[in-house]
């Protein structure tokens, strides 16, 4: 599927006129359809000249709609999840979502007219791997794989860009922060708090 890109101004107008993103997609959906609609929406609503707060708001909506944020959060805390108290777990999940929104929403601002298409899918254990490409004429495409868990509704549990898994990356970074603060989850919570307070 190819997405023809509109001029920037038109894009912004279209994004502003778009109805809220949540309701429409909740019903029965295949993993592939989830990725197709999500990619479409991300390019329409997150790129171009959108104020930062607005972009983060929209990104958060897409994140909650398409991703299993709690499962990703648990995975990225790794073995420290079970060591954390319920209070620490709850605060961690809140900070984790905020951190992801801040760190990743901004990356859509640097978008320069690439197109997005789903190229295939294959089962991989208990998830479906949806393969896609971000491409631009005259340049090799960037390969993006989406790990989609399919329970009541399909939800993304990881995004792998050219072999780099976002979930593994965050788990590794968080583990380093925890280890450097003497194995304490509080060290990570403090770091996340100060990073997301800006």
């Amino acid at each position, binding site marked *: 599927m190819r997405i023809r890109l509109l001029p920037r101004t038109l894009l912004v107008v279209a994004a502003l006129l778009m109805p809220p993103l949540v309701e429409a997609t909740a019903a029965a959906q295949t993993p592939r359809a989830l990725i197709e609609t999500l990619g479409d929406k991300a390019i329409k609503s997150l790129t171009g000249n959108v104020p930062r707060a607005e972009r983060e708001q929209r990104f958060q909506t897409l994140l909650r709609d398409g991703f299993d944020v709690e499962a990703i959060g648990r995975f990225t805390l790794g073995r420290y999840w079970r060591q954390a108290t319920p209070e620490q777990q709850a605060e961690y999940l809140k900070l984790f979502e905020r951190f992801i929104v801040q760190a990743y929403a901004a990356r859509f601002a*640097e978008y320069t007219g690439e197109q997005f298409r789903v190229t295939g899918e294959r089962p991989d254990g208990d998830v479906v791997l949806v393969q896609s490409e971000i491409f631009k004429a005259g340049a090799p495409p960037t390969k993006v794989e989406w790990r989609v868990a399919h329970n009541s509704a399909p939800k993304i549990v990881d995004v792998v860009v050219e072999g780099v898994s976002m979930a593994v990356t965050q788990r590794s970074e968080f583990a380093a922060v925890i280890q450097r603060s003497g194995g304490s989850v509080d060290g990570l919570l403090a770091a996340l708090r100060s990073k997301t307070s800006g």
Partner: protein
Amino acid sequence: MERTRQRMRTGLGRLATLACALALVALTATAAGAADPDDDADDPLEGLNRSLYDVNRVLDGLLLKPAAMVYRGVLPEEVRDGVRNVLDNLKGPVILANDLMQGESTRAGVTLKRFAVNSTVGMLGVRDAASAEGLYRHDEDFGQTLAVWGIGGGPYLFLPLLGPTNPRDVTGMLVDNFVIDPWGHMARATDNDWFSYTRFGLDVLDTRARNIEALDDIERNQIDPYAFIRTTSRQRRASEILNGRPASGAR
């Protein structure tokens, strides 16, 4: 006479470095073994690496980044793209040799065609005419060839200027540049060492200029940039070694 001696000395120096690096690889390759994929750190030299990371950040902030910003500010994009294309085209023979040593005949064919097209139609590599025909560039180096041959990376290293690497890949880089690369040999043989220095300098400068926003982003948005670069560079490298094919038994 003086020049010849000079050349021999640097040649010997390089050989010595190469020998040391090879010895280091041999030592560490056996020790590396199969790392637990869940052991995210696996960084026995972390203390040293973090110091070198800080050294690099200071040097980068004082010298390389400002130079890269000037480079990007002064030269128009078309010129910088031309420079990049020439540098990439010069890497053709090294990529081809490594494609072949890894038994990747299809990719070797692409590299060969790219080099032929870009060196002629592309005016000595200035224009990447091959990409316009769907012959996209891929990278390959002797570090990857060693990996394909079953040699482990050894301990993670963060080196100033080179960034995230390991003893195997440092060895690979030395072999690529001083053994395989034909242009380096030609430059040395004809007393045109300036060519190799200019090429190296431009490569570093252009690479840095293309990553200004990306690195700023990591420093600004991640909570432990060192750990972030460590894990992403390793995952990327593992994927490059497999030429983007899915790993068997991945998580």
